[in-house]
């Protein structure tokens, strides 16, 4: 079965990619399988300067999920370009650069540099990281700021720009509309929900940063709902994510309105998961009487062009 999907300007041989922050810059997972099998790779967030992230502990387990507050640790855009991208040039899989920042200027600076790299095929604008005070989350919860950062980044990027939306909002459609108006080429949704766990022995938050981002199967119903909501309003390509761990989940996201999907937390439970999903997808589609990815898209009950 042909699994290829087209996300606006971005062509993927299949709709499955690892989610940003859960796959580093690919090197570690290349020990497990050939990265060329992946539809794309969303690499760890890049900021203007190197960041050292939050104090540890940075992760905690929750029921069917986890909290993380890594705090955007990364070697900075120049460090990534110099030390991490060369390895990825060995692969033909499109690389999506995740862009973070504290200020509009930082976003623009990082985006501009990344967009110039040949190996980078699209940008994912992370306006939704809940784990650092200066992490851009304000850009993801205010439609006006979301508009501004998106259009500023668009103006410096020749590559498609996907804006990654925060689920920690009253009205996700509003933000989606704002970034679409600003020229976004696509959406990525959802980032993590802000959560917390307390340790009863220490009586303190388990995560040093106090709060962390909730991800994993626990949040899947929220992701499906938000993608479904946004798909009613827009024809923009959507990279769906939030709790995917099976080929059935992939189809559920496609049916909800996603055009491709990203897998985050599940990589920690099973480092082979992305490859496994790619292998299982054709048969699983068949089990539900789908003959192609396109058929899944067409059986959405609510494509905007059809019903709304």
């Amino acid at each position, binding site marked *: 079965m042909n699994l290829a999907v087209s996300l606006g300007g971005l062509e993927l041989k299949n709709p499955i990619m690892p989610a940003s*922050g*859960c*796959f*580093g810059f690919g090197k*570690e*997972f290349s*020990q*497990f399988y050939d990265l060329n099998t992946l539809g794309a790779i969303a690499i*760890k967030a890049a900021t203007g300067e190197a960041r*050292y*992230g939050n104090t*540890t*502990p*940075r*992760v*905690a*387990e929750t*029921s*069917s*999920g*986890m909290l*993380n507050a*890594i705090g955007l*640790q*990364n*070697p900075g855009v120049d460090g990534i370009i110099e030390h991490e991208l060369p390895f990825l040039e060995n692969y033909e899989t499109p690389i999506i650069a995740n862009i973070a920042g504290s200020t509009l200027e930082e976003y623009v600076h990082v985006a501009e540099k990344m967009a110039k790299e040949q190996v980078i095929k699209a940008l994912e604008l992370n306006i939704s990281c809940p784990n650092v005070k200066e992490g851009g989350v304000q850009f993801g919860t205010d439609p006006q700021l979301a508009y501004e950062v998106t259009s500023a980044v668009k103006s410096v990027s020749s590559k498609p720009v996907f804006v990654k939306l925060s689920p920690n909002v009253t009205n996700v459609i509003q933000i989606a509309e704002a970034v679409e108006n600003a020229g976004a080429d696509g959406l990525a949704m959802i980032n993590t929900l802000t959560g917390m766990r307390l340790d009863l022995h220490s009586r303190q938050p388990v995560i040093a940063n106090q709060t962390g981002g909730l991800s*994993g*199967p626990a949040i899947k119903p929220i992701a499906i709902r938000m993608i479904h909501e946004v798909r009613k309003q827009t024809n923009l390509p959507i990279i769906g994510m939030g709790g995917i*761990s099976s080929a059935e989940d992939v189809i559920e996201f496609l049916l909800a309105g996603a055009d491709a999907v990203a897998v985050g*937390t*599940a*990589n*920690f*439970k*099973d*480092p*082979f998961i992305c490859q496994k999903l790619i292998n299982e997808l054709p048969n699983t589609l068949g089990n539900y009487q789908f003959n192609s990815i396109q058929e899944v898209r067409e059986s959405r009950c609510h494509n905007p062009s059809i019903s709304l």
Partner: protein
Amino acid sequence: MIQEQMTVIKNRLIALDTFEMVLTSETIPQRANSGQFIHVEIGEGNEHMLRRPISIADLDEEKGLITIIYKVMGEGTKWLSKREEFNVVNVLGPLGNGFDLDHHVGDNILIVGGGVGVPPLYHVTKRLSQHNNVTAVLGFQSKEFVFYEQQFSQYATTYIATDDGSYGHSGIVTDVINQFDEPFTTFYACGPNGMLKAVQNQLTHLEGYLSLEERMGCGIGACFACVCEYRSKKGYVKICQDGPVLKASEVLL
């Protein structure tokens, strides 16, 4: 590193809340180094999305077995403690670096373990004892938690300390170490951070090694969950990949 379905051969209580589990493994005994760890999947289904890191306590290359020793702390280790013979456990490993032991010959080596930091030191001790003189100081909360004293005694002059004095020396490992006047060449330590800090401060004159613990996501170096501060590389040492064994002089605890 590899993902393997391992069969439980033995899973027995060896001290209060503490279990010794023997697992079959086709590849780890040949590849693993003392000090490396495995990352164990917990439960069926999706309730537990994070694996649990557990040190390799012993290897049997011939029989294709590995031994782990773990203390029941929360849901994951509780689930492990309920595995029975012939149950299967999904394991990723061997992970992290190990102790680099090969260059030691005729040395006087100090091993310092605390609680569930003791397990990885067992295989270290076994290997070092082949060509060196090894002294092991093992600390536990109290008598009921003591394990592997006999096993260590086969390979090292072994001292046990308990916090409450219910067994062996009363007090903490550094109290015992204070009493030695042998000149050690190096030391290998693993245990709670408080203990490691005390050992680090006490043995500044020696070039030694610490094995650290931190909450982990991926266990393979991809998620930046498990970093530790390192004098020469600010913020960039990952315990799962660059550690868990790190130079005592470099680690900022």
